[in-house]
């Protein structure tokens, strides 16, 4: 480091003061722009959901609902429309897929990252990073043979098929993040525990998992969001209404011509709430998990 602190570093000349004001003004403008950019599609959802009229696109040129009503939310919550008949069951299916994807990704990912990172199974990059090869195969390519094979696995029209696809796509990234974070934990801890007679399983449960908690929370949230974002596999693999998820039900609304848009948007908003709540509740862990471990420069 060639740091020689000169006096010019601290002196504030008028030119610098003007520059500082301009920087602040530009920052404020950028912040306002980002606020609008982030919220416009969300506002649009509320605008459509709160419009009481059913039928076609009746929000002609409106930027504010003239007569806001919560009727559409009532219809969704009470399943009061034929496309919404199984809404709560479908919601349960989405929750099942999300939670199972999260748990299995954390479990399988942490086991694999422990073996690859802490037990030094192998040092070859081709082997250690092999899970990332999954991403060479686009999801839209894989889904076609996948849907054929699920029948022979006995998983046709089953929620477990979706969980399997989600876990297959979430774990490579999870292993990557967990291995990065694990580099922060001194290997001497493991060695000390081994000297005290800890078996690899005890090492994993008593040392690795507790110390990795922030990264596990980050990876779990990532898996949950991936499951909640996923649509293609659910659309292709789940055919019956009762096994459908909310994502597919909303898309069905979207593709049907006469279905009321306000009901669709109300369902979409209710569907969006759980991941948002969980995400903001765990935000602190995610921040530590990502900032202290993930993909460092």
């Amino acid at each position, binding site marked *: *480091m060639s*740091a*020689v602190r000169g006096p010019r570093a601290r002196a504030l000349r008028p030119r610098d003061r003007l520059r500082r004001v301009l920087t602040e003004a530009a*920052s404020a403008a950028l*912040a306002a722009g*980002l*606020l609008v950019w982030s*919220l*416009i*599609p*969300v*506002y*649009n*959802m509320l605008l459509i959901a709160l419009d009481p009229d059913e039928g076609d696109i009746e929000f*002609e040129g409106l*930027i504010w609902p003239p007569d806001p009503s919560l009727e559409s939310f009532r219809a969704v919550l009470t399943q009061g429309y034929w496309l919404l008949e199984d809404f709560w069951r479908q919601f349960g299916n989405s929750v099942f897929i999300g939670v199972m994807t999260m748990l299995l990704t954390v*479990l*399988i990912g942490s*086991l694999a990252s*422990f073996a690859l990172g802490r037990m*030094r199974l192998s040092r070859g*990059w*081709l082997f*250690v*990073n092999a*899970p*990332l*090869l*999954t*991403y060479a*195969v*686009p999801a*839209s*390519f894989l889904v*076609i*043979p*996948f849907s*054929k094979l699920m029948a022979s696995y006995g998983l046709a029209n089953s929620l477990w098929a979706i969980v399997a696809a989600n876990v297959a796509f979430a774990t490579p990234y999870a292993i990557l993040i967990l291995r990065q974070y694990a*580099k922060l934990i001194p*290997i001497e801890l493991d060695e000390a525990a081994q000297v005290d007679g800890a078996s*690899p*399983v005890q090492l994993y449960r008593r040392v690795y998992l507790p110390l990795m908690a922030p990264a596990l929370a980050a990876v779990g949230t990532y898996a949950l*969001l991936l499951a909640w*974002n996923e*649509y*293609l596999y659910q659309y292709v693999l789940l055919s019956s209404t009762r096994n459908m998820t909310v*994502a597919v039900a909303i898309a069905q609304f*979207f593709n049907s011509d006469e279905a009321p*848009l306000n009901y669709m948007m109300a369902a*979409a908003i209710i*569907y969006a709430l759980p*991941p*948002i709540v969980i995400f*903001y509740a765990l*935000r602190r862990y995610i921040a530590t998990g*990502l*900032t202290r471990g993930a*993909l*460092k*420069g």
Partner: protein
Amino acid sequence: MLDRPRRPARRPHLPGWDLAWAIAFVVPYTAVFVGFVLYPVAYGLWMARDPALYGELLANPLYVRSLVNTALYVGIGVNVKLFLALLLSGFFMRRRWWIKALLPVFILPWALPSIPAFVSFHWMLIGEEGLIDSLLAALFGVQGPLWFHDRRLALASNIVADIWKWLPFWTLTFYAGRTAIPQEIYEAAAVDGAGGFRRFAYVVFPLLGNLYLVCTLLSTLWTVGDFTTVSLVSEGAPAYSTDVLATLAIHYAFDAAQPALGIAAVTAALPALIPIALILMRALQTRDVQL
């Protein structure tokens, strides 16, 4: 550079008993990988083994256009998204309370599920009844365009929706990367009189260069496989002219009941994707050499 302790010496080889445990720990993942990735891929390649399929595809102008669309969607989308994310991560490093307060709102698109988000994008851009055109009319008195009646506008809508959804994720990743740069390096650069731009060009970018490469490659792979955005925002309109490989393949496989053709459509992209995945795996290994 900074004087940092070298990596600890490698541990000696695993004793046989530990090796057995290590293998046992990787078994669940290996089972998932073989059962739900490797075997379906092999099966898919076997289904699309007939060379005539590829001739049929290349003779189809819709398919050739979808190749162009995919190149534009991925090429523009990924680069704009990551470059903006890199710049914005620097913005969020600023210590102002209102910038800190903005961050949770900015992250919202990532937490919002794709289906609601893209359905909303579709209706927002539906034409003069949509929110965007309504706002243009109310604020500036301009009549907005019919977004999905023009191929370029529809393609741009898809790209913008994709950027909107994934910008927060990559911004957070770069933000994490920046917090790993020791503060003294910034201070030293500031003392030496490096302004914002030069600090970015000579300090931040060289230090984050490899991370930027890794993220670009990862985002490219994920965006090529993206079906949801295009299938909901523009729905391929006008007249299938904005379809990408992913939507066209699903269309062939499930609407037209020609699964082999659908697989062949995406298989054509594999020669480009496998090298990208290999470079990604290699880049991840050289990364800790940087600092």
